[in-house]
C-alpha cells in the first residue's frame, strides 16, 4: 500500500464535498496568488459548480491580482462563468448598517437627535476602527451565505474560498465561533432571567432580544460544526522556504489543530529550483536555492502526511487571469522544474 501523499492539491481541487477553503499564512508569502490559483483550478475542474473567492484581508489584493475591480457584492471574474470574487469592505458594510438604522428610525417617525446623529454616518465612524471589526464582518458574510444556501435566496455558491489576512487576524476570525458561542451562552443566561426587561429597553421597535440571540446562537453553532468538519472545511497553509515563515506556519498548524480544523496542505512558494535552470543561474540564486533546499528537506520530514506543494518563483508577476491560470496548473499537477521550467518565463506582462 502506497502511503506517500501526493505533492499537489488535486484531491482538494476535484473535491465535491468541500464548502469552505481557507488559504492563509504569513504576510507576503503569496496567499492571494495561491487563493486565486486554487479558486481558478476548482472552477476549471468543476464547471458545473459555482465558486466564490472572498478576501477577508483588510488590505485587499484580489482586484490587483485579477486586474479588475471587485467590491462588496460578488461579481464574476471576466473570462470565467463560475467564479466570482468579493472584497469585504468594513466601512461600506458599516455605512449600509448605518443607512438601515436611519431608515428604520424614519419609519418609526422618530425625528430626535439619534436620527440626526446616524444621518452623519456616526455608527460607521464609531465602529469602523474597532479592532477585530474586519473579522466580525467577514464572519457575518459567512453567516449570510449559510443562510442563503439553506433558504435558497439569492446567489448560492458550492464552495467559498477565503483569501485571509496574515496569520494573527485569521486565527482571531477562526476563534469567533467559539468566542461567540460562549458569549451567547452567558447572554442566554442573562436574558433568561431578565428577558422581558431587556425587551422593554429595546423600546417600541418590538425587538425580541431573546429570540434574536437564540437565532444567532443556532447560526454560530452551525458554522462551528461546519468549520470543524474535515469533509466541509479545510485550511491551506502558504509559506516560503525560510525559517521565519516555516516557524509561523508550524504555529499556525498547531493552532488550527487545537481548533479541530482540518489542515493537510502546505504550499511552499517562491522556490528557485536553481540547479535545474542552467541557462539562468547566478551565484545568488544558487546560494538561496541551497538554503531553500535545506528547509525543503526539513519540511518533507516534518509534514510527511501533508500535501506539500512546491511552487516556483516566476520570472514575472502573476497577475491577470491568464498568468494565474498558467501558474495554478502546478497546484493540480506538481511542478517539474525540467519539463515545466519554461512556463515561468512565459508570463505575460500585465500593465
Amino acid at each position, binding site marked *: 500500500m502506497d502511503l506517500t501523499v501526493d505533492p499537489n492539491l488535486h484531491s482538494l481541487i476535484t473535491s465535491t464535498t468541500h464548502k469552505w477553503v481557507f488559504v492563509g499564512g504569513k504576510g507576503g508569502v503569496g496567499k492571494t496568488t495561491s487563493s486565486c490559483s486554487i479558486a481558478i483550478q476548482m472552477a476549471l475542474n468543476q464547471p458545473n459548480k459555482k465558486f466564490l473567492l472572498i478576501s477577508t484581508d483588510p488590505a485587499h489584493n484580489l482586484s490587483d491580482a485579477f486586474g479588475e475591480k471587485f467590491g462588496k457584492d460578488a461579481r464574476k471574474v471576466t473570462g470565467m462563468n463560475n467564479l466570482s470574487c468579493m472584497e469585504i469592505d468594513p466601512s461600506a458594510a458599516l455605512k449600509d448598517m448605518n443607512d438601515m438604522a436611519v431608515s428604520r428610525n424614519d419609519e418609526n417617525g422618530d425625528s430626535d437627535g439619534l436620527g440626526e446623529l446616524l444621518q452623519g454616518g456616526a455608527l460607521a465612524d464609531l465602529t469602523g476602527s474597532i479592532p477585530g471589526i474586519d473579522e466580525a464582518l467577514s464572519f457575518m458574510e459567512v453567516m449570510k451565505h449559510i443562510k442563503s444556501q439553506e433558504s435558497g435566496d439569492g446567489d448560492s455558491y458550492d464552495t467559498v474560498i477565503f483569501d485571509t489576512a496574515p496569520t494573527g487576524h485569521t486565527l482571531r476570525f477562526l476563534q469567533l465561533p467559539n468566542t461567540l458561542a460562549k458569549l451567547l451562552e452567558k447572554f442566554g443566561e442573562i436574558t433568561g432571567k431578565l428577558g422581558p426587561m431587556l425587551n422593554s429597553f429595546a423600546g417600541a421597535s418590538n425587538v425580541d432580544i431573546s429570540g434574536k440571540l437564540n437565532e444567532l446562537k443556532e447560526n454560530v453553532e452551525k458554522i462551528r460544526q461546519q468549520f470543524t468538519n474535515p469533509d466541509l472545511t479545510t485550511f491551506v497553509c502558504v509559506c516560503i522556504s525560510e*525559517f521565519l515563515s*516555516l*516557524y509561523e506556519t*508550524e504555529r499556525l498548524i*498547531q493552532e488550527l489543530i487545537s481548533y479541530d480544523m482540518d489542515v493537510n496542505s502546505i504550499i511552499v512558494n517562491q522556490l528557485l529550483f536553481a540547479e535545474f535552470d542552467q541557462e539562468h543561474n547566478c551565484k545568488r540564486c544558487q546560494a538561496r536555492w541551497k538554503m531553500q533546499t*535545506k*528547509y525543503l*528537506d*526539513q*519540511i518533507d*520530514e*516534518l509534514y510527511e502526511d501533508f500535501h506539500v506543494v512546491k511552487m516556483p518563483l516566476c520570472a514575472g508577476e502573476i497577475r491577470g487571469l491568464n498568468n494565474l491560470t498558467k501558474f495554478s496548473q502546478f497546484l493540480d499537477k506538481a511542478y517539474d522544474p525540467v519539463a515545466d521550467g519554461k512556463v515561468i518565463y512565459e508570463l505575460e506582462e500585465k500593465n
Partner: protein
Amino acid sequence: MHWVVIFALLFVSINKFLQYTSNYHERWVSKLSLVKEIRDLAENLRKLIKERKAIYEENRAVSAQDNYARWTKNNRKISKLDKDIEQSKAALKNASSKQEHLLKRVKLIALTLPFLALKLLKGKTIVYDLPANDMFPMIMNGILTKGLLYIPLLPLNIVRGVDPNKDLVTAGVSLSVWLMGFTKVIDTVEFIINQLFLMPAVPEPKHEKNTTKEKELEPKEIEELKTTEAELD
C-alpha cells in the same frame, strides 16, 4: 530545666522547622503518602517534568535553522508535555486535597492548639528569676513576671484599689515574655544570616559625574558682554 520550657522549646523548634522546609512539604507528602494513587500521580508528574527538562536542554543545544525538523518535533513534544504536566498537576492537587486538609487538622491539633494552651495556662510560669526585685521599675517587673496583660489590667487595678504587684514575691521572667524575646532573637539572627550570606549582593549605585562644566568667563569676556548690552539699550 522545667518541663514547660522544654515543651515550649520543642514547639518553637517544630514550627521553625516547618517554616524552613515549607517548599518541600508538597513533595514529601506526595512521596510518603499512604494513598497509592497520590504516590503514582506524583511519580508520574516527576517523570514528565524530568522528560520535559531533558528535551528542553536538547533543543537549546540544537540549531533551529540547521536542524529545523528535529527542533520543531522537540517543540511539539514540549508543548504536549506542558499540557500533560498541567493535567497531572491538577489531578495530583485534586487527589491530595483531602490529605492536605487532614494534615492541616493534625497540625492544628498536635502543634498549634497545644502550644496555645501552654502559653495560656503556663504563661506566667517563671522561667528564671531576676537577681533582685528592684532591678527594674515596678511596672517592668510586673510585665516581666505576669506578661503583657499586666499593662491593660494596671489602670483597672489602680481604679479598684488593688495592688497590681500584690502576689509578686520574686521578680522573674515569665514564659510568655521569655518566648516573645526568644522568637524575636531567632528572627533577628535569621535576618542577619539572610542578609549576610543568602541574599545576592546589591551593587553600589554609581553616581554619574557631571561632565559638562559651566564655562567660567574671563573678565575680558564679561566686559565684552556688558558692552553688547549697552549697545542694545
